[in-house]
């Protein structure tokens, strides 16, 4: 029952993300547009490129969707509204989201097209840049909660949210999450203006619809993870827990989508050097500071 409710909420959330993304990119707030776009995609022919790696080409969109949904499985919306409260929850989110990379490499390699392949390998290049900035800030969050349980992580922020307790970790995680969802300014994987869609370039029809759905779910999952790790999850005054979760997740999504609009795209080589020269040292510093704070105040 909980699983069904959460999957429905996830689908609804993905729809809202589509509305927000449309709003952020075109400036028009239209509630029905994503539905019409989806219908149009489903109605179109799904072209199979010449000499594809058929297995990869077919598996990639589904794998993207599955990994995003799996990551969402350990995210609590209220103390009880969670698909499975794994004892390794915070690690499991990483494990599931790494397969986004595998899916995009498959999507890049599969269709036997240059644009797609460049897009796929670019995503790998970006991953080498930001991967540590996902794992290390989560390590610091887990240190404070002294548990990998995501529900425990939310409870640990009862007195003070992690965004205040470890702001450096929050900033790094937020940037890395945007890169993982290949949102602008890190959208070189799809690169609309330059690679004609990158990994999406050779997909059409129902396959593209699944791919886009997977990405929307990925965005909302990452926003929800940010809320759980840094913004106190379901906690807040007056309103019920589920409402706080919903408000926070949608706010984070909106900020993620809007932030990209006002920033220039970052070349993956620059991202790589900045992440390794500044990001990782900052992440280590964050772990050290949190360690000191945990030891002093507990």
């Amino acid at each position, binding site marked *: 029952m909980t699983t069904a409710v959460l999957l429905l909420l996830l689908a609804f959330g993905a729809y809202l993300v589509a509305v927000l993304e449309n709003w952020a990119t075109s400036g028009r707030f239209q509630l029905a547009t994503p539905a019409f776009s989806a219908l149009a995609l489903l109605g179109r022919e799904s072209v199979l490129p010449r000499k594809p790696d058929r297995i990869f080409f077919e598996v990639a969109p589904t794998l993207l969707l599955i990994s995003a949904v799996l990551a969402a499985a350990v995210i609590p919306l209220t103390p009880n509204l969670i698909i499975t409260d794994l004892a390794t929850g915070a690690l499991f989110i990483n494990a599931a989201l790494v397969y986004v*990379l595998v899916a995009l*490499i498959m999507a890049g390699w599969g269709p036997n097209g240059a644009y797609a392949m460049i897009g796929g390998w670019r995503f790998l290049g970006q991953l080498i840049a930001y991967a540590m900035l996902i794992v290390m800030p989560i390590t610091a969050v887990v240190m404070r909660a002294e548990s990998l349980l995501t529900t425990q992580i939310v409870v640990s922020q009862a007195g003070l949210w992690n965004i205040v307790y470890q702001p450096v970790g929050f900033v790094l995680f937020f940037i890395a999450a945007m890169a993982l969802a290949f949102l602008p300014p890190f959208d070189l994987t799809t690169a609309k203006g330059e690679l004609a869609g990158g990994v999406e370039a050779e997909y059409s029809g129902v396959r593209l619809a699944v791919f886009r759905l997977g990405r929307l779910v990925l965005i909302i999952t990452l926003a929800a993870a940010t809320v759980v790790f840094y913004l106190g999850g379901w906690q807040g005054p007056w309103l019920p827990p589920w409402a706080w979760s919903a408000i926070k997740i949608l706010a984070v999504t909106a900020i993620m989508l809007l932030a990209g609009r006002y920033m220039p795209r970052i070349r993956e080589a620059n991202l790589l050097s900045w992440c390794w020269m500044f990001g990782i040292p900052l992440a280590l510093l964050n772990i050290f500071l949190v360690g000191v704070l945990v030891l002093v105040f507990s």
Partner: protein
Amino acid sequence: MTAQMFFIGFFGLASVWFGIVVFRTFSMVRSALALLFSQTALGAMFLSMQAEFLGVLQIMMMATEMSIMAIFMVMFMMDPGGLGEMDMTHQKRLSLGAGIVAFVAAVAVAVFVDWGPIADVAPDAAQQTVDLGLELLGRSMLIFETAGITILTAMIAATAVAIPPVKRKPSKGATHHEH
């Protein structure tokens, strides 16, 4: 119990099968990702054995590692797409012999080592994570640190070897005499 045995066997066979696929395909990316799924199946075996942390960790770590291996294979192999049907095997007899010896040795270790009393019930997942942490920072620390440093040294050495040597011109005013 039987369901557990079934899943351990199933993922074990899946792991072996994907290991075979590595050498049955000509495409470098397929080969790398087959190895990934072999390792993922190993992670699933850990999960079937109720070792949650180890399973999730295995499934997480291998995805990045094998993907990075895939791009290196594509970069350095002359036929990454496998359209030329390049043979993926070499030194067949040696590797066959090494494989058999390693298999026999692994089975021998599994069968003949005295593993001590076998636990009836696995500790719960959170407790396992705690135990593992204490183990890594206690008895096994030296082994893990040695392995980590060795890998780091190998990576730095490999990078150093891969960079083409640059001939430096002697700078002006340097006391350098050529004979």
